[in-house]
């Protein structure tokens, strides 16, 4: 999957009849029920809902971080029910993950952290080093390219993690509360980046947030309650 062709699939996310349960037998606890969700390439979708409603579980299923159990889940052309081995790794390489915790290596500078992601893709257009530096600069880290996480604030670390998730122009960005640690100015910058990636690259964004200020910026608002899609509105 080369960068820049994220629009070639009809649907970026195509889910129907998806169930998911943790545990087995008596301990079995179903957390997702009959999920139906279709997101078009380039769409910016926000998923919201009360705590424990299954948002994170759904996100990790879309990211192929969990093995789906039942139903249909096809994302950017890959059938996640069947995906494994090299194809699984290739699928993940085409995604951008932004976790609640930044999970940066303490020994690596901001630049090196982003480079680790960029190194996974050798089909990126233009100069890699330049791209890393300009992305970090755009995120307000131009002065801190060669700082290690210990020398960065919480918000700065989160922005490094965001740069790491976006540097390779992924077809699909999956983000869980990415703006929780950011002030409103940096939140704006990050949302702007999402928008630009969607416009230039056809990148689809699926983002979990409780932050009502962000809702109005999305194309889609999906509300999950008790493992079911309660409402799904286009804006």
């Amino acid at each position, binding site marked *: 999957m080369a960068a820049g062709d994220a629009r070639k699939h009809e649907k970026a996310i195509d889910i129907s009849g998806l169930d998911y349960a943790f545990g087995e037998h008596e301990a079995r606890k179903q957390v997702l029920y009959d999920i139906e969700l279709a997101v078009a390439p380039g769409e910016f979708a926000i998923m919201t809902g009360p705590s424990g409603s299954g948002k994170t579980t759904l996100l990790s299923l879309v990211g192929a971080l969990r093995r789906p159990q039942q139903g249909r889940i096809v994302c950017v052309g890959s059938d996640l029910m069947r995906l494994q081995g090299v194809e699984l*790794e290739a699928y*993940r390489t085409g995604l951008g993950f932004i976790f609640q*915790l930044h999970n*940066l290596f303490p020994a690596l500078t901001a630049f090196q952290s982003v480079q*680790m992601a960029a190194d996974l893709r050798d089909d990126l257009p233009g100069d890699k080093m330049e791209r890393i530096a300009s992305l970090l600069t755009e995120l307000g880290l131009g002065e801190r390219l060669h700082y290690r996480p210990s020398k960065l604030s919480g918000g700065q670390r989160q922005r490094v993690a965001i740069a790491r998730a976006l540097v390779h122009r992924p077809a699909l960005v999956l983000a869980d509360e990415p703006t929780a640690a950011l002030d409103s100015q940096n939140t704006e910058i990050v949302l702007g980046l999402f928008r630009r990636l969607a416009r230039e690259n056809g990148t689809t964004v699926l983002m979990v947030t409780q932050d009502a200020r962000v809702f109005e910026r999305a194309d889609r608002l999906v509300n999950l309650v008790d493992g079911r899609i309660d409402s799904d509105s286009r804006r």
Partner: protein
Amino acid sequence: MAAAGMGFAILVIFVQLGFYSSVLNTALAVSSRLNGELILISPRFVHLSEAGEIPRARLFQVLAHPKVLSATPIYFRYVVSRDSATGNYCRLFALGFPLADARTAMPLRIPGIDDQLDALRPTGDVLMDRFTQTRCGPSSPESQFELMGTAARVVGRFELGVGFLADGAIVASDDSFGRYFSKLGYSLDRPHLGLIKLAAGSDPAKVAAGLRERLPSDVRVITREELDAYQHRHWVQNTAVGNIFGMGTVAGFLVGVVVLFQILSTDIRNHLPLYATLRAMGYTSQRLHGYVLEQSWIFAVLGYAPALLLTLILFPIIHNVTLLPIFMTGKLAAGVLVLSFIMCTVASMLSSRRLRRADPAELF
């Protein structure tokens, strides 16, 4: 901290291997300095300190071979020395040869002997190894020095270094040598080995075969390289020191593997979410293992550099105190570097198994 642990393990390996190579230096100290292509030994020969004796007459038979330039009897034995001023006794390795033969071909390639041959002429006068323990004396020119209870004079020094073999070494004329042991009924007609120098361009193996045909079974003909091999085998396999330092090297290696394994495993355990993140990013297991391997090599380098530095300081000190032939060589430095990398690679392969627990499912 991690690098310190590595550094310590590598230092242990350096010191053990240093001692080990000084055992090898000891083994070859004398044999490698014999100036001849072939050696005549007793059938009872085990190694230089347990050589048996050969009939001197065999050397004349050897001389009859057209390709043989010289055949020199070599005498060696442990002698007990005593310095009357201090009363100190020592065990010295004594080497003797006929001075007349040395005019044709110097039997020993030991720095300091060639130009002092004349000084050895008076019976009882000897040259002493500069690397002899100082306590052996002679403590002053006035003090009386004895070898096997017979008065002797140290008239000069040479440079050999016999390591674990003895407290020191002396070189004497065959007559002087015979005198020290005459009380024991020892006769110069029975040297400990014969040193054969061949004419330039002759093939030692061929001459050896020819000699074997002429000589009775009370002597054997071997090449000098074979003598080195005898010595090497004896010191490495049959002496306590060879075994101790050989095992010490293995132990240092294992300690290094265990220390680094602990360090890497702890590091992986502490950073499991980070490794899981790399998995989520699409890093293959292979790449993750590669990343751990890279880390371990950084430890190898970080540990090696200070260990090398410490060893460079330590070896001269050990050498000065013990007079053992323990030196830093390019071969030792390179060998330990290679061992360090192997050590780190093994440790990283063992600890890589922990990566399986890096599960990206719990990251969000």
